[in-house]
C-alpha cells in the first residue's frame, strides 16, 4: 500500500520550484510516477507531498530550433518514440525510446523522471550522452544549464539540488555526415546493457567517434579514451581496438556481479555490442 500523501498541482515551473523550496525534503516531483510510486509503495522513499508537474504546458512540449530538439521533462517515452520531429531529427533516441520497458510504462513514464531517478539500468541517457545533450534546470535563483554527463552523477543520483526542477533536455541532432546506432540486451525487466555509437567518416576511416555505455556500471558514461583510440581507424580495425581496451573499459565501467550476470559476462557483451553498434553506425554514416 502507498502511504497517504498530498498531491499538489503545479501550474507553472516557478510554482513547482516555490513548492519545492517551501516543503523541502517532504516533497517529491511527480511526473509519470512509474518509478516514484513503486518506491513509495515499497517504502523506499517517503514523501508527504507529491508535486504534480504533468499539467505544466512547457514541460510537456517538444520544440525544435537550430538543429536542437528541446524535450520537456514531462514528455513521455511513448511521445518520444512516436513524435515525427524526434523520429526525423533524433532517430537513435526514438529507437531507444521504443525499447523502454513496455507500452504501459512508455505511455506513463517521462524522460525527465527517468533521468532524475537515474536508475543505472535505463536506455535514454546512453543515447543522450552521444548527442551531447544539456539539462535545463530551474531553481530558486533562476535557471542553469548542466551537461548531461555532469547531470548524471551516480547511481540514483543527479546534480539536481533538492529545490531544483529539471525543465527540459536540449538534444542537438547529430551533424549531417554522422551515422548512429543504439543497441541493447535485456533479459529481466530492465536492460542488461545499452550501447550508443555515432561516427563520421573521412576517406573510409573513422573520423569523429562518440560512444556511450549504459546499464553496466553505476551510471551511463561516454567512453572518451576508446573514442580517441578509434579516431582514424579503419572499420576493419574496430574489433581489435575494442579488444585492446578491455582493461580500461573494465576500470571505467565498474561492472558488478548481479542477477543480470557476472562482471565478465557484462564486459564481454559490452565489447560485442560496441563493435556491432559501431559497424551499424558506419553503415548509417555511409548511407
Amino acid at each position, binding site marked *: 500500500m502507498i502511504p497517504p500523501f498530498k498531491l499538489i498541482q503545479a501550474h507553472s515551473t516557478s510554482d513547482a520550484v516555490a513548492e519545492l523550496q517551501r516543503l523541502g525534503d517532504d516533497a517529491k516531483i511527480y511526473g509519470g510516477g512509474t518509478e516514484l510510486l513503486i518506491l513509495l509503495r515499497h517504502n523506499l522513499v517517503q514523501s508527504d507531498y507529491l508535486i504534480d508537474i504533468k499539467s505544466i504546458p512547457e514541460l510537456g512540449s517538444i520544440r525544435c530550433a537550430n538543429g536542437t530538439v528541446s524535450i520537456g521533462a514531462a514528455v513521455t517515452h511513448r511521445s518520444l518514440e512516436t513524435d515525427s520531429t524526434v523520429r526525423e531529427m533524433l532517430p537513435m533516441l526514438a529507437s531507444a525510446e521504443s525499447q523502454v520497458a513496455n507500452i504501459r510504462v512508455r505511455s506513463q513514464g517521462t524522460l525527465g523522471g527517468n533521468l532524475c531517478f537515474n536508475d543505472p539500468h535505463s536506455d535514454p541517457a546512453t543515447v543522450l550522452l552521444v548527442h551531447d545533450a544539456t539539462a535545463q534546470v530551474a531553481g530558486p535563483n533562476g535557471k542553469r544549464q548542466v551537461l548531461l554527463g555532469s547531470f548524471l552523477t551516480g547511481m540514483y543520483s543527479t546534480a539536481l539540488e533538492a529545490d531544483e526542477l529539471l525543465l527540459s533536455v536540449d538534444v542537438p541532432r547529430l551533424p549531417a555526415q554522422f551515422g548512429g546506432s543504439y543497441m541493447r*540486451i535485456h*533479459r*529481466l*525487466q*530492465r536492460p542488461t546493457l545499452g550501447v550508443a555509437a555515432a561516427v563520421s567518416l573521412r576517406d573510409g576511416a573513422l573520423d569523429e567517434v562518440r560512444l556511450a555505455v549504459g546499464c553496466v556500471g553505476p551510471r551511463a558514461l561516454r567512453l572518451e579514451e576508446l573514442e580517441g583510440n578509434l579516431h582514424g581507424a579503419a572499420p576493419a580495425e574496430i574489433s581489435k581496438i575494442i579488444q585492446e581496451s578491455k582493461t580500461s573499459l573494465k576500470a571505467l565501467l565498474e561492472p558488478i556481479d548481479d*542477477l543480470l*550476470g*557476472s562482471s*565478465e*559476462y557484462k564486459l*564481454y*557483451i559490452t565489447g*560485442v*555490442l560496441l563493435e*556491432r553498434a559501431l559497424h551499424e553506425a558506419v553503415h548509417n554514416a555511409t548511407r
Partner: protein
Amino acid sequence: MGEVDPDTGEFQVLQYAVAVDAGEMLHYKSAVAQLLFGAVMGFGHALFEEIVYADGQIMNADPFQYRLPALKDLPALMQTSVLEAGDGPGPFGSKGMSQTTIATAAPVIGNAIHDAIGARVRSLPITPEKILAALGKIPGKEMKSSIA
C-alpha cells in the same frame, strides 16, 4: 528449431512441436492448450526461471527480477500432435496427458543449442551467459565441452 547468436549467447526458439500419447482426448481444445502452454512453462524452466539466494535472502522474489517466458520468447510456429489409440486406463481409453510437455522442453532446448553451436550447457536455466561460457568465450562454471 532454435537460433543462437554465438557472440552474445542470446537464444530464440524459432519453431516448436510436441507430440503426446493421450489415449483418447476427452476435450480437444483443452488438451491442445495443455500441451502448448505446458511447453511454454517448460521454456521458463529451460531458459529463465531461477530463484537466486544471497545471505539467506531471495534476491528475485518479484516479477521485475524473476523472469517468466513472455510473448516475444515464443516461436512463431508451435505444433501439436496427439496419438489416440484408446488404450489408456482412464475413461474412454484416455491417459494422463496434461502438461506432459513441460518436462521435455529443457532437454529439447539443450539439444537444439548443442546442435546449433556444438556446446553443451548442463544446468538450468540455460542463460546467454552460460552459453558463452560453454563456448569458452567467458570464464564460467560451465566447462567448455568437448564436441560430442
